[in-house]
């Protein structure tokens, strides 16, 4: 990458964080903030101990337990292994002087919800976490990506990571979003279009009027699922919406440095004539509310569509893959998506567990009841989201409609905690992955927006929000 010439947002953040080249030709990239959770960190701390290495900059690291934590009765974690993992995080962070939000702290929540909520996430930063959905933070114009546990140990020990530059991809979505279409539909549509390996080796910058018109919550939903398109990270240029969101949050720059930070942040958006390795342009009017029918996030279809027929696949591999997915999902080709009957509804996760998501759900289910055959669960992304929702009376609306109102955590997005699907159960889920077994062995996941999940909870079938008044 040359230092001259027009630069993308990614290029700018990259060159600002380049510590130097190692002799093997790799780049050392400085990491501004490191988020740590209980599942992918114990082996990293153990590695430090074995090699007798200290944490280089404990104050640049923030830790929270989210994957394993129960969303009810959380004073006592019943699963002994989960309990050990959470306790190990508490012990490791204490030993190394790392800030830890424990389970009783109102600031506890899903790591990718609390980073932005606390103002830890800021434009132009490099942020890593041992979790693939770290891409969420790209919504602020921060270069944020998931890393493995060995890399977690590397960052703890050196505050740097060994990387080679990614390629630049820009996906522009233009125009006003059609009625009933929102950020989740946009990103599902994009993944369907480019495929789950479509972004491999790239950082995707999302641009265009549809994207820039989104709230920070909507932008986070988009960047969150960049990893489902195979991308290393997602990015959106910071703008006034971003700055307004950050100002005044606990870890945001204070009055003493605000103007200086703002000046830097304002210099970050990609230069007009910057070069991209790949460009995709989408007209938002072609997008419908989207739902997944299969076991990969690329298996998407309009809510008005049908379950696909394997015989229409273009390659033998694709045909086999569709057949395998349909068998797992228990679906017949040609079935109308809106004829699919549900057992469970899960609203939450780092994709759609923010206050805006909860407000949308409440507005749809207000004064209604969920279908008698479904169980519906809503899990706020953090203790503070929960508090805010309760202050607004959202919890009452949801409980009156028949939803279970839970404590913050990853919950049924990955079923590492007691919230899981049983074999064969079918779930409308606002999370990010419909992989086989992800929400519980044999569980069948249909990814969709909070709006669709809310409407589906009421009817008991997958439903189009546009038909729902």
């Amino acid at each position, binding site marked *: 990458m040359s230092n001259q010439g027009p630069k993308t947002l990614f290029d700018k953040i990259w060159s600002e964080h380049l*510590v*130097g080249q*190692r002799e*093997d*030709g*790799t780049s*050392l990239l*400085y990491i501004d903030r490191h988020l740590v959770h209980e*599942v*992918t960190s*114990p*082996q990293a701390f*153990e590695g430090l101990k074995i090699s007798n*290495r200290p944490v*280089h900059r404990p*104050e*640049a690291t*923030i830790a929270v337990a989210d994957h394993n934590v129960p969303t009810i009765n959380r004073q006592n974690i019943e*699963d002994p*292994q989960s309990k*050990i*993992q959470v306790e190990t995080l508490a012990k490791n962070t204490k030993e190394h002087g790392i800030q830890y939000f424990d389970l009783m702290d109102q600031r506890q929540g899903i790591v990718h919800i609390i980073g932005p909520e606390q103002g*830890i996430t800021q434009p132009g*930063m490099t942020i890593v976490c041992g979790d*693939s959905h770290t891409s969420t933070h790209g919504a602020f114009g921060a270069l944020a*990506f*998931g*890393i*493995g*546990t*060995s*890399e977690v*140990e*590397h960052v703890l020990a050196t505050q*740097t990571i*060994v990387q*080679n530059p990614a390629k630049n991809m820009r996906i522009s979505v233009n125009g006003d979003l059609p009625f009933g279409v929102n950020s989740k539909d946009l990103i599902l549509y994009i993944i369907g279009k480019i495929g*789950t*390996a479509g972004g*491999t*080796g790239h950082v995707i910058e999302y641009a265009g009027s549809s994207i820039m018109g989104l709230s920070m919550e909507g932008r986070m939903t988009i960047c969150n699922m960049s990893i489902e398109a*195979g991308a*290393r990270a997602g990015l959106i240029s910071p703008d006034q919406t971003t700055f307004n969101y950050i100002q005044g949050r606990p870890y945001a*720059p*204070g009055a003493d*440095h605000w103007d*200086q930070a703002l000046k830097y942040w304002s210099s970050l958006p990609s230069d007009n004539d910057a070069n991209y390795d790949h460009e995709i342009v989408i007209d938002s009017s072609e997008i419908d509310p989207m739902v997944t029918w299969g076991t990969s996030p690329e298996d998407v279809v309009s809510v008005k569509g049908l379950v696909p027929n394997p015989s229409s696949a273009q390659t033998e*591999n694709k045909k*086999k*893959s569709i057949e395998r997915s349909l068998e797992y999902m228990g679906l017949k080709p040609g079935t109308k998506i809106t004829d699919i009957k549900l057992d469970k509804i899960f609203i939450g996760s780092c994709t759609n567990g923010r206050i805006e998501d909860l407000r949308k759900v409440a507005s749809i289910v207000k004064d209604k009841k969920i279908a008698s055959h479904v169980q519906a669960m809503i899990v706020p992304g953090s203790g503070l989201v929960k508090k805010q929702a309760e202050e607004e009376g959202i919890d009452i609306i949801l409980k009156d409609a028949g939803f279970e109102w839970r404590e913050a955590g990853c919950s049924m997005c*990955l*079923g*590492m905690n007691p919230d899981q699907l049983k*074999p064969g159960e079918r779930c409308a889920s606002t999370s990010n*992955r419909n*992989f*086989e*077994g*992800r929400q519980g*062995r044999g569980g069948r996941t249909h990814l969709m927006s909070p709006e669709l999940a809310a409407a589906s909870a009421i009817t008991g079938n997958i439903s189009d929000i546009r038909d729902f008044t």
Partner: protein
Amino acid sequence: MDKFNSLKGIAAPLPIVNIDTDMIIPKQFLKTIKRTGLGVSLFYEMRYDNDGNLIKDFVLNTSPFDQSKILVAGDNFGCGSSREHAPWSLKDFGIKCVISTSFADIFYNNCFQNGILPIVVSPDQLDQLMMAATNQIEFSIDLPEQTVKAGNHSINFEIEEFRKDRLLQGLDDIGITLGYQDKISAYEEDKKNKKPWLFKDN
């Protein structure tokens, strides 16, 4: 870290695309605080039935593939979660090399941290190797020469030089980076002046 130089053995064919890390090692096994012991749970839901009994026709449960050191798999192997438990479970099972047409970025990186060689081949080459694996033909992998041989197929593969060196020498990556401590400190001093809000530490 374990070194990787060359490898001979039969390869297990797994002709499925988009094998994600949830399939490689499901969530319930991520509760460990150790790196070892995950091999028995590798591909758990494909390998065991609801009662925990081996599913007899799954490839890694059949002889001689239950001794495979090499896996030949469909496109986009290792997509999804960043869990390093995926390569840990492959390694613990005994698999030291995975061949596919593409790998997800984080999984690809994680392999090199654990002495596992991921090899990218073309779709045609994958078809040939999948067939050779199914026919139990012995594979021979040579990292210094960057070749995969199986029967009368001989394929050259690409790998970045630094990754190759790291595997060949089994290098400690953190140790290497700590050799650049002065540069890291100089970077931090510079940024403390230029971007003080980043160092107004929590």
